[in-house]
Each structure stands twice: as C-alpha cells, then as structure tokens.
C-alpha cells in the first residue's frame, strides 16, 4: 500500500471527526447495504486514516451508500460519515477513479433540473438508460413495472418546465465556474 498522507490530511481537514474513529464497527453493523460494498464503512474510515487513497477512491462503498444516515446517527464518536461519503464521491470523480455507475445517475438527474427546473421521471429513466448503454437492454421485471405504472396513470407523459429557468441556469453556471 502506498501511503498518501496528504490525502489523509485533506480529508481530515474537511471532516476533522474522521480522526476519532476507533473501529467499534457500529457503522458497519447498522449499514443496510454493507452486503454490496467492497469496503465496509469502518474499513473506509481506517483506510482514510492510513492515507490509502487508491483503495478508498476506487471503492464501491460511496456509490452503494444511499445516505440513509444510520451510521452517522449511531456513531458514538459523532463522525459525520455521510459527509465523508459525499467528499469521497467528489474526490473520486475529480481524480477519475470512479468504478461504479453512480455518478451517471447524478449527471442525468442534474441535467433534468438544469433543462426544466424540475425532474420528469419518465425522461430521467430513458436518459439514464441511454447514458449507461442500456436503452435496448431491458430486463423483464423493468418492462413489467413500467407497463404497470403506465396503466395505473402513474407516469406523467409530458414534462413541466418552470418559468424561472433563468435562476436555475445561474445556479448551474456558478457550478461550472466553481469546478
């Protein structure tokens, strides 16, 4: 393992509570999605403290985490693990080390807001399928669910565009500049 102390320091400067972890495993024991993660939450904390940048930023963990907040709520050291996951997501995107599809969901979602100010669920699903190369790879459960939802009038066919898209545009222009 290559120790990157600058990485550890950077994370702990942003979220100082990270240094308090003493591996009690409360986070991991309460995490509903730990079965799908390559590094468990307490392992992420340890690897961050050790400065194991490669391992942490290539982990699936931040993208499997749903920010359900169970870990942070129960942590006896009040470590803000959810903010840590957000920070790791940002760092991993910036360093080009993402190994999961998670960022694509955020991109498509934000595109929806940028264009219309609101999210149109039907467009969101189609755009996401296009972006992940799954437009024509439909799974039978998904087709069934889609048809059911359509038949029950749960899918709004046409999107709503708000009048104040200029204000939304400004918010996203600032975001581009900040990057």
């Amino acid at each position, binding site marked *: 393992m290559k120790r990157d102390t600058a990485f550890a320091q950077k994370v702990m400067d942003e979220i100082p509570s990270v240094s308090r972890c003493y591996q009690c495993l409360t986070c991991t024991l309460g995490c*509903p*999605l730990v*079965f*799908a993660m390559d590094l468990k939450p307490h392992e992420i904390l340890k690897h961050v403290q050790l400065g194991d940048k490669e391992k942490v930023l290539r982990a699936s963990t*931040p993208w*499997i985490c*749903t*920010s*359900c*907040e*169970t870990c*942070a*709520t129960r942590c006896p050291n009040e470590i803000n693990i*959810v903010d840590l*996951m*957000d920070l790791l*997501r*940002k760092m991993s995107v910036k360093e080009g080390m993402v190994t999961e*599809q*998670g*960022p*694509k*969901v*955020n991109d498509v*979602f*934000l595109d*929806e*807001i940028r264009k219309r*100010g*609101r*999210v*149109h*669920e*039907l467009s*969101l*699903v189609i755009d*996401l399928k296009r972006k*992940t190369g799954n437009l024509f790879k439909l*799974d039978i*459960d998904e087709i069934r*669910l889609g048809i*059911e*939802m359509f038949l*029950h*009038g*749960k*899918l*709004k066919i046409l999107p*709503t565009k*708000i*009048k*104040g898209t200029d*204000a*939304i545009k*400004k*918010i*996203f222009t*600032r*975001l581009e500049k*900040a990057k």
Partner: protein
Amino acid sequence: MKIGYYPGCSLESTAIEYDRSVRAVAAQVGVELIEIPDWNCCGASSTHPVDAVLTAALPARNLVIAEEMGLDHLAIPCAACFLRFRDAQKRLKEDPALRKKVEETLGKKYKGTTKISHPLSIFSQPEIKKKIKQKIVHPLKGLKVVCYYGCYLVRPPETTHIDDLENPMVMDDLIGLTGAEALDWAWKVDCCGAGHALLRPELVDRLVGDILEGARKTGAQGIVDACPLCQANLEGHQKGPDAPLPIFYFTELLGLAMGLEKEAEGWWKKHLISPKKAVARQR
C-alpha cells in the same frame, strides 16, 4: 390556517395520489395549502455528492419565493424533499460564507425564517388532531397495519427532529385515530434502497424483501408510508409467492376514515397493488 405547500417532482407523477390525499385531508381539517408558484426541484440525492452551494441553492430558491409571499410555514410531504429543505436551511444558518454564495447566485436575499414541516407534524398538532377525531365517520376497525418511516423523516435527527429516531410514533398515533390498529414492529426506520431502483434494482429487491417479510411476520394487512420513493419501492418490488401487501400513504387512510370514499376510489386506482380489498374487509 394558511400554510405554503411544496409538492415536489414525484407528487406530480408517480405519487399523484399522495398529493391528492394530502390536499384532501388538509381541506377537511381547515388547513389551506398554498402551492409555491413556479417551484423547482430540491435536487434530491443528486446534489449533495456534487457541490455544497448547488445543494443549498435549489431549495433556497423555493424558500425565497415563500418568504416573498409572506408564508412563514411550509408543508413538504416528500420525505426526501423535506430533508433537503431542512438540511439547506440548517447549513445556510450555520455557514455565513455559504449563505453569501447562495444569495449571490440567486441575486436575492434569503432570510431563513420559514418553518419547514412534514404533514405528519402538521396533522399531529393537538388542535388538528382534535378536528381529525371529530371528522372520523368510517372508523377502519379491524384493519391491521404497520407504519413505515424510512430514513429521511428521522435521520439525521439534528436536522429532521420530527420524532424519536429509532422508534418514531407520530404516524402510528395518527393512524390510531382512524380506528385502524398500528402494530409495533422493528423495520420502521430501515432503508428501502431509495434511488438504487434506477440502476441496481436487485439491491432494492433485497431491502424491500426484508421489510415486507417483517410486516408479514407482524401480521400486518398493509404498510403505511409517508414518502413517495419508499412507497414506489415497496409497491414495485414485491416478488415471490406471498399475497401482495398494499402500501398506503398515511393521508389516504386518514381521508378514507373521514368519509372521503369517492376520492379514495380515485387514489386506489393509482396503486400498483390495489388497497381496495384490504379496506373493504373492514366494512
């Protein structure tokens, strides 16, 4: 009582029955909901992994509109929107630099004076509870349900502070008013898998499977819910040989017990798993 109303994107589409039943119950108990004109998406779970200013600015634009209208109280039925608004308000209060950036981006002053509530809290105010009790004409006697709160209503508690974080009772108490029995169970604040429904549905299948199994073991005839995403996951990811469990919005049961039978017929049509049988059994 006049309260601002922020429906959010799901309540225009997959959760339209939630929107309709919230409005119907509010009208019954004398709460006038005033929809925030030209509201925008709160950003849901796609902004906080990206940028702090973006995360605060999207809810803030709506809060500024509410402030300009003189609305000092805002009702938000979607649990995810509710958390995003509360989180933005908290961070803008605690971080003056963030607030300055958001105000510059919006080109408007943000006061931060609006009280943000979930309808569960609004309908639980003592004087409104009293009105609900008076309006119950069709008690749902014999209906056994479990109340499911999920994540964003209760966590993080310092932001949501809606009720106890491991064993909330606010929804159970409201459902108790309808005459239905809200059973005690251990899956109240578990996660449904949320947005994984989009790319990793197998993860949602597993989490929803556990929650449904818990509800069945407890002897529930249905699950009551207060979040459009949880409802969609719990309803859309039921698999296996067991008889399907209907997933109600808490406002639907309140409305039905208040005698909104005709309206309820319209709400049930929007459900993938019809709750009609479960509620008919009680009459």
